[in-house]
């Protein structure tokens, strides 16, 4: 009997004093997006977007902007202005202005990686222009952070953008034979659009890929299952599934890389002369193969001159070499030969002939 009482007392004491800090859902301001602008060296301007859920089920967003030297400091400064504690546990999106990205973003991103509170599914993107402007824009009946991240998600699902979240960015950043890249957004007429891909040299934004090259880049960088490509002026081809294969020759001396690209597609729209179906297929296939090859090779040449490797050629060579020497590879990279072989297969052209 005494034993039970002792145990009960111990229990109650630990329950009474053992409480931890509560984070009750409706007493929090849940940050949905954060954006960073460049102010001066070691000084950044942060903008946090907080969705406000109104009792009538409509959503609007509130933004806080602060200038500080550390990203954590910026969040604390926001707390001083906010009626509820700002929590980053539901952060979905982090945007960097292109100017800031040019100075390197590792320190900022590293912060998110360290914080156990933040999801690794966090979307990162670079904004062409000022981030603050984009985040303070109110988009219809929607929270701005959610709105922008949905645009990125939607385009990723469509196959226009390669998938990139915090984890993948860090994966690319840390892997020896690869450089990261992020989607590039732009605010045009109060509307957010995906304008291309931001290419990084380690953590510094160096160049971009325009929207017109997006399809080729996506197909080159991952096994893609969607996306559309415009062949010349008259045909739209929808990608049903693309595969890429790397072939590396002469590993010991000067490697020579061949990228075999296989694209299966259907014709979405064809406004050219009406010709026989088989012939049309052949023609479109040939034209597309030629165009994609040209675009791809041009793109890769550009990467080589910039000494960046977003497609992971280094990774391909590393995984095929014993005792890989990273430095030697970096020196050699701009000079190696990269060939692209494209194989397009058209399987359908709709239900009416």
């Amino acid at each position, binding site marked *: 009997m005494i034993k039970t009482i002792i145990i009960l007392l111990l229990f109650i004491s630990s329950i009474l004093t053992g409480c*931890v800090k509560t*984070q*009750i*859902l409706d007493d929090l301001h849940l940050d949905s997006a954060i954006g960073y602008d460049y102010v001066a060296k070691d000084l950044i301007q942060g903008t946090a977007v907080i969705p406000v859920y109104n*009792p009538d089920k409509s959503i609007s967003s509130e933004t806080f902007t602060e200038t500080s030297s550390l990203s954590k400091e910026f969040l604390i400064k926001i707390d001083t202005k906010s009626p509820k504690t700002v929590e980053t546990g539901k952060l979905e999106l982090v945007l960097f202005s292109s100017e800031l990205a040019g100075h390197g973003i590792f320190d900022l991103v590293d912060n998110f990686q360290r914080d156990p509170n933040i*999801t690794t599914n966090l979307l990162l993107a670079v904004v062409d222009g000022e981030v603050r402007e984009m985040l303070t824009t109110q988009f219809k009946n929607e929270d701005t952070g959610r709105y922008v991240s949905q645009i990125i998600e939607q385009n990723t699902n469509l196959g226009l953008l390669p998938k990139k979240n915090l984890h993948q960015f860090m994966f690319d950043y840390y892997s020896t034979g690869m450089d990261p890249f992020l989607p590039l957004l732009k605010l045009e007429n109060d509307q957010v659009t995906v304008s291309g891909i931001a290419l990084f040299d380690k953590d510094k934004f160096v160049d971009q890929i325009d929207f017109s090259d997006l399809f080729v880049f996506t197909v080159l960088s991952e096994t893609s299952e969607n996306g559309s490509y415009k062949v010349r002026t008259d045909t739209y081809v929808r990608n049903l599934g693309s595969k890429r294969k790397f072939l590396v020759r002469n590993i010991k001396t000067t490697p020579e890389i061949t990228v075999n690209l296989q694209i299966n597609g259907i014709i979405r729209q064809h406004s050219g002369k009406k010709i026989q179906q088989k012939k049309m297929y052949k023609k479109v296939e040939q034209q597309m193969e030629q165009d994609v090859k040209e675009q791809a090779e041009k793109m890769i040449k550009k990467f080589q001159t910039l000494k960046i490797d977003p497609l992971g050629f280094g990774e391909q060579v590393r995984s095929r070499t014993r005792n890989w020497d990273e430095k030697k590879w970096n020196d050699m990279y701009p000079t190696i030969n990269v060939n692209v072989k494209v194989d397009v297969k058209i399987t359908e052209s709709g239900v009416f002939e």
Partner: protein
Amino acid sequence: MKKWFQKKNKESNESNESKESNESKESKESKESKESKESKESKESKESKESKENLSEIMSRLKKSSDFICYSNNHSLNPFYISYCKSLVNVEILHRDILALINDKPIRTYEELKGAILVEDIIITSEIDKIEKLILNGFVMIQLDEKDNMCALARAELQIGRNISIPEVEFSVIGPKESFVESLDSNLNLIRRRLPISDLQIKEVMVGTLTKTRVAVLYIEKIVDKENVNTVIQRINDIEFDQIIDSAYIAQMIADNQNSPFPQLLDTERPDRVAGVLAEGKVVILVNGSPHALIGPTTLIEFFSSFEDYFLSWHVASIFRIIRLFAVTFSIFSTPIYVAVVTYHYELIPKELMVTLVTSRSNVPFPPILEVIFLEMAIELLREAGARLPTKIGQTIGIVGGIVIGTAAVEAALVSNVLLIIVALAALASFTTPVYKMNNTIRLIRFPFLLFAQLWGLVGLVLCFCFLLVHLIRLTSLGRPFLEPIYPLRWADLKDAFIRLPFSSQSKRPILLRTKEPNRFNKKQAKEKKDIDE
């Protein structure tokens, strides 16, 4: 008194604990017999003290009660004295079968008396205790000589009781519609009719110093493990209590762990279920005056299997069982999870759900735990009130209270409507448990979970779950593990646990019961594989 009783029972529990192994049986049996000997001795000593009383003393004590009737016919030729308890005796039998037959005949001895009376149950005795007991059980005492202790007792019991009706607690749409009543003999009749075999044995014990309740232990001799029967009888004999009103008293007093919120004996009001489990090799306890039979040893899973499961096709029955188990899990965990997530782990909530949750809670002034306790209390109130009121009013109260209070509380922003849905569903889910006692337990154990969820969120929840698991692992029913077939894991017994496989694969009786005859039927004979078109 009560304390002493508990202590004694605990002792007996210890000796009865973990009857798992057959090997250690012998030592235990000897222990048991020793104990029972002791208890017998004590009883004998008591009896001898009482038997010093004279019959006339008992008669004078009985005569104080106004329903006791004692008269003699003053026939000089044939004098006899009749005494009986008016409230217990069927006057028709008394007049037709006893008085009418002996009034005119010259009767000199008790043997002649026995021959003269048409009643089949006539006892001639001079044991004072027995006489008193029988008179108080509706026997008519006939004496030829008032001064002598010798007398004849004829059964003329007045049987008043409910007619057999349909089961109310364990109602089933299909299947038999008979349920037990308060009379032990009618109940035994219901079971005997279903199992007309000589192997069905009934052992009767008298318990309760005041109530002298008849308790019957039923089992099928050639199937049951004798150890289970011994345990049951032993524990019932050990009960020291003044009154046994219902089988629930017995259930609590012979439970392995009396501090557990879980019922350790299954109770049922269906004779078909009793017949079914007897055939499996279980032991059944019936108590006079109680329409509920007790079944043991039982397992946790059995509480969630309705006997109707055996009337439906096995696929349907299996799905129903899984739904029931899911419902139980839901009703225990849903509100604690709500508390844990909303209080601590907002990160877990999917983005799409966020809007619904935040807006529903945005005007609620209380922390989630208070909100939940408020609603749970409201539901418990409705339940309690509904159970105490007459059926028709109860229903109305339930509906009115539920709808009115629920809507009003949400509109007044005292609770969030998401929570209202969760609590209502949880309450609904807890009603799917077929056994009412388990249903109550589930109502109870939700509260510690809420407490732990408030303390440490999900970690606290799992900690509490661990306490529950350990408790269930440690729990036994008549010395058999309560969590079987999950732990100890017995594949063969899983055939009738979470799902119910078809009867063709139910060839073996549960291993848990260690039955003498493990097979229900010969599987090989029943199932011969045939080729196509053969």
